[in-house]
Each structure stands twice: as C-alpha cells, then as structure tokens.
C-alpha cells in the first residue's frame, strides 16, 4: 500500500491511463488487421477473379476463332486463336504468382491441363480443316466443344474458389472489426467499475477522514487536550491532524 495521498491518486490515474492506452493499442492492432484483410481481398482474391474472367473471355474467343476458321475466315480465325492463347497464358501466369487460397495451385494446374487439351484439339482441327468436308468439320467442332466445356468448368471452379475466399475474408473482416471494438467496450465497462471504486476509496480515505477532522475541530474544547479524529493512516491527513494538535499545544 502506498502511504501518501499524492502517490495514491497518481497511481490510480496512471492505472486508468495504462488501461486506456493498452485498449487503444489493441484496437489499432485489430483495425490494422481489418485493413490487411481488405488488402488481401482487393489485391489477391479480386485480382485472381479478374484473371479467371480474362481466361473465360479468351476461351470463348478461342472457340469463336475456331468457328471462324472452319467457316473459311482462316486468317481472322487464326489471329483470334493466337491472341486468345496468349491472353490465357498471361492470365495463368498472373494467377500462379497470386496464390491466396489453400490448394489454389492445384486448381490452376487443372485449368492448364484442361486448356491444353482444348487448345491441342483446336490446333489439330485447324491443321486438318482443309481436308475435311462440311459434315466432318461439324463433327470435329462438336468434339472440341466437350473439351471447351471441361476447360470452362475448371476456370469456373478456380473463380468459385476465389469467390469463396472473398466471402471468408469478408466474414473475417466482420469478426475482426467486431473484435477491434471490444477493447473499447470492455474499457468503458472497466472505467465505470474503476470510477465506482475510486469514488468508494476517495470517500473512505479522503472525505471521511477530513469530515472526522472537521468534526474534531468543531467539537474541540480546551479541556480535551488534543483532537482525536481516529485517523489510522500515515498519510497527509494524519500529518494535518498531528499539526493541528501541535498548533493547539503551541497556542496553549
């Protein structure tokens, strides 16, 4: 226990300040986590979803390119297929460097595998298209469609994975923002308890002894010899009581 009133008051407020400072630091850390989660969503998951959209778009174009090629527009068809191929390769490259979800690399491997099958089929069809009849062209195109859907499905699965990732990150954000507020809420409750306790101690160790001292002075008469305010502490109020008694002695 501290003896002087000054140190008691100072220590009490220091404790309160410490509690509030730590609450603020904790809240900042938690809000920072929310910020990082947003960055994760924006930079990583959103980027991955954008790339899967590019892949889907390019895949559709490659399919159109094949159709154009088979219809006789070989130059435009060939350009479209090549452009789509390079777009998908770029998107896969970006996706590979931006793995954010568990097993995402396996999903990308699956996209590569399915796309490779589709692209090889497209190439084989374009190479052999001169020798094919219209019916054969039609049949070959329908066969490549199976591979087209398989590649599309694998890209959609990759997109779904990242969308789920966004949903999870958002839930985490919600949880983190709630958690960031908690130190403040607990601080408010703790500060109220602290205030009630402080009120009790101030009354017990400051107000009551002073009241007893005032009463002692008020009811003092010379025959009593000295004032006894029943102060059992060794703080400034006890010193005041002793000094009043010294003063009485000196005045006598």
């Amino acid at each position, binding site marked *: 226990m501290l003896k002087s009133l000054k140190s008691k008051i100072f220590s009490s407020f220091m404790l309160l300040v410490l509690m509030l400072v730590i609450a603020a630091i904790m809240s900042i850390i938690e809000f920072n986590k929310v910020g990082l989660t947003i960055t994760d969503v924006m930079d990583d998951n959103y980027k991955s979803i954008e790339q899967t959209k590019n892949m889907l778009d390019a895949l559709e174009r490659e399919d159109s390119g094949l159709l154009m090629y088979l219809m006789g527009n070989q130059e435009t068809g060939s350009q479209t297929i090549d452009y789509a191929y390079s777009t998908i390769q770029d998107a896969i490259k970006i996706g590979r460097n931006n793995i954010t979800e568990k097993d995402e690399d396996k999903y990308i491997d699956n996209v590569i595998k399915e796309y490779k099958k589709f692209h090889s089929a497209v190439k084989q069809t374009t190479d052999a298209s001169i020798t094919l009849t219209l019916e054969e062209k039609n049949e070959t195109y329908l066969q490549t469609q199976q591979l087209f859907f398989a590649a599309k499905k694998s890209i959609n699965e990759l997109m779904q994975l990242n969308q789920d990732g966004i949903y999870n990150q958002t839930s985490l954000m919600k949880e983190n923002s709630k958690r960031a507020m908690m130190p403040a809420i*607990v601080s408010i409750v703790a500060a109220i308890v602290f205030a009630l306790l402080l009120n009790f101690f101030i009354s017990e160790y400051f107000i009551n002894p002073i009241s007893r001292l005032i009463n002692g002075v008020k009811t003092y008469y010379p025959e009593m010899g000295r004032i006894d305010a029943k102060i059992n502490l060794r703080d400034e109020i006890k010193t005041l009581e002793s000094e009043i008694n010294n003063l009485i002695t000196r005045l006598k």
Partner: protein
Amino acid sequence: MRTKAIAKYLGFVLLFNALFLYISAAISFFLRENSLTPLFYSAVVCTILGLFPQIFVEKIDEINFREGMAISVFGWILTCFAGAVPYFMWGGEFTFANALFESVSGYTTTGSTILQDVEALTKGMLFWRSSTHFIGGVGIILFVLLILPDSKGIRTSIYRSEVSGLSLMNFRMRAKRIVHIISIVYISFTVTLILLLWILGMTFFDAVCHSFGTIATGGFSTKNLSIAYYNNVWIEVTLTVFMYLSSLHFGLLFLTFTGSKNNIFTSKVIRSYTFIILIGIILVAVNLIMSSGYTWGEAFRHASFQVVSLTSTTGSATIDTDVWPLFSKIVLIYFTIQCAMVGSTGGGIKFDRIYLFFVSLKRRIKLIQHPQGIYVTKMNNNIVTEELELQTMAFIILYILIFFVVTLILAAMNIDGMTAFTASITSIGNVGPGFGKISSLANFSALPDAAKYLLSLNMLLGRLEILNVITLFVILIKKNQ
C-alpha cells in the same frame, strides 16, 4: 463488514485470474493466433482492477467470518464475470449469455458447454477454458490463500467459509496446513496425469487441458467428441482412475500417501462410496449387454467410464449415453444426484451427506424404539454434532427444492421434460452432461438465453454449497434493515 478489506481480497482474486490469462495470451502470441487481443486485454483489465484496491487498502491483520464469507461468495461471482470477458471479446459463438455460461461452467468445474464446435477455438482460448477448471477445481479462494502472506486469522476465516463443515472432519489441523495439503495433492495429481496422458498418445497440449479438466472434475475437452475422439482404452482407464481419485477426500488421500492409519482404505464412507460405484457399473454394464447388444468388454469399458465420470462430476464422455436404455439412464441420473465426496473437487449433494442422512435416520429409528437411550451419530469413528446433522439435512432439502424449482422454470420455457430435468440436476451438481438435448456428446447452445442465465446461477449455487450464499444474503439484508 469492512468493504475495503473485501475489496482488497477480491483484488487478489482478479490478479490470480490475470496470471492464467497472461499464460493463455502468451500461447496465442507464440502461435500467432487471433485470440491474443481478447486474452491479453482481459488480463490487463484484471491486473488493473486487481491492483487498484492494493494501492489504497492498508495491510489487513484480521478478517472475521462474515467478511470471509463475503470474500468467498463475491470472489466466485467476480471471477465468473472476469472469466467471461475473453470469451465475449473473442466473439464467434460467444454472445454475452454464452460467454457467462461457459465461464461459470468452467470455474464451477461443471464442464457443460455452449460450443457446437470446440475445435474452432484457438489454442490460447482452449488453454484459458481449461485453466478456469484448474483455478476452480480446488477453488480460486484457496489458491489465493496459498499465495497470501500468513496473517492471524485470515486463512482460517476465509477457508472456513469456503469449505463445508463435513469436509473439515477429516482435517484435524490448522487452515494453513490444510490449504497446503490440498494444493500438494491437487498439483501432484495434475502433473502425474499430464505425463501419463502424454505417454499414452495425447499431444502435450491436449494432455495438459484434459488433466486440468479431470483433476478438477470439470470435463472440458479440446475435442468435439470429448474423450471418444481418442478411442484409446488406456487413456480411458487412466482417466477413470484419476476421476475416481479426484472424487475422494483430498485430506484422506494425503494421509494415505503419507502412511497414516486414517486413510482411504480404513474409511467406511469411502468403502461404501466405492461399493456403490461398483454396483452402478455392474448394473449399467449388464443392462447394456442385455438390451443394447454390447459385448462384455465394451459394456464394462463404457459403463465404468460413464459412471465414474458422472459420479465424480467430471462429465467427460466416451459415448453418447442418450441412446442407452432407460434403466441405464436412471442409474446415471442417480449418480448425477449423488456425486462425489466432500473434500474433493467434485460438486453435488455429495456422498457423505447421503451417508450421514442414512446414519442419522438409523439413529432416529433407534431413538423411537428406545426413547431413553443415548445414541450418537458417527462417521468414520468421528462423532457428528447435532448442528452438523441439521445443517446437512437442511442442505439436502434446499438442494432438492432448488433443483425442483429450476426444473419447473425450464419447463415453463418450453424445454422438454428430460432436458429440463437433467439440465437442472447436472448444473446444480456441477456434473456437465445430461440427457435429451444436452446429452454427453451434445451441448447447451440450443437452450434460450434465459435458461443459460438460470443454469449459470444454479451452477454457482451448487459450487458455493447453497447455504453460504443464503447466509451471506441474509446477513446483508439484515445489515441494511
């Protein structure tokens, strides 16, 4: 009653909680878990509110019985609220009602949970959850007494308000020595069990958490399937032995280990207690073999674990007992009512009181037959005073009354009969699981918030042995009048 003296000791209670919160926060910190903020900040708040009274209140030389009682009762209430803070801050499944329920369940070593997915908690939170069992096992007040500097009358006053008179019969020594004996037995059992579970294949972390839960007879697990997760007979046997030991009088256990003549083998009460447990195991096992087609081995394996688990008030599970035949359920309900022995970490009516009830009944019958005769009630060759006898009878009546009223209120909340009945009995007995919606492998999450608050109060009443709480409130009311 001096409020400042009570505040000073409640401060110590908060500081003791803060110690375990810091350990849990350290676990979260090293494992980079997201429970660091809730655990660390709760520890900070407990430290600051615990230190605050120490700044003002001078050294206390003496504490009277009333103050001791107030420290004990308010200490428990304060601890339960403080323990709920990290759960509430962490969020997830913890609403305020859920956090308070989990905290009360932990400290009172009930072991009931509102968590549907225990495994979703971080290691730091799981450790804190198990720590509440460890702290509550022998009682936070006792731990505080252990670390307090010795002052005249303080230990005795607080200690006598914390433990029942019946329990003191086997302790013929000073409060300081009793506190040390209880702590020695408690800590050495915990350490031994940690090592055994670790050797038997649990991870060190799981071994620590399950040991805290077993020696404290709490039952919180780190797994959704409780002990059934491990499906290991040796783990089950080890836990059964330690649950049984933890349900015995710690003083007698200490005397047994130190070679005293007054030990667990010479105690008539312990012999009767063990005999009834064995009868219970045989009844359940035979019923399981005949009605549910269990093999002999399986029947005795599960029957012994479940009977000892419930009677010791641990409440750990190896199987869903809700699917067992009605006869087995009734036997298990009996053990949920009877519970462990006084002087143990278990709750409930306690076997000693039931034993005393029958010994006392026998004496009354003798007195009716021979009104001029002089008969005394004896337990383990100790004469039981008339006052202690009356206190025990009053306790049993109050216990049954409270259990009945709580069942009634739960039924009024549209909770089905079996769930309401066993929730009431399991919470006041600090056992853990019941039947119906709250069976051994289920949880209390489906109950409404009002029921959770009511059951939290029931758990606290059971842990504080009812009479203490009532006496304190009678004192406070009279003081105000």
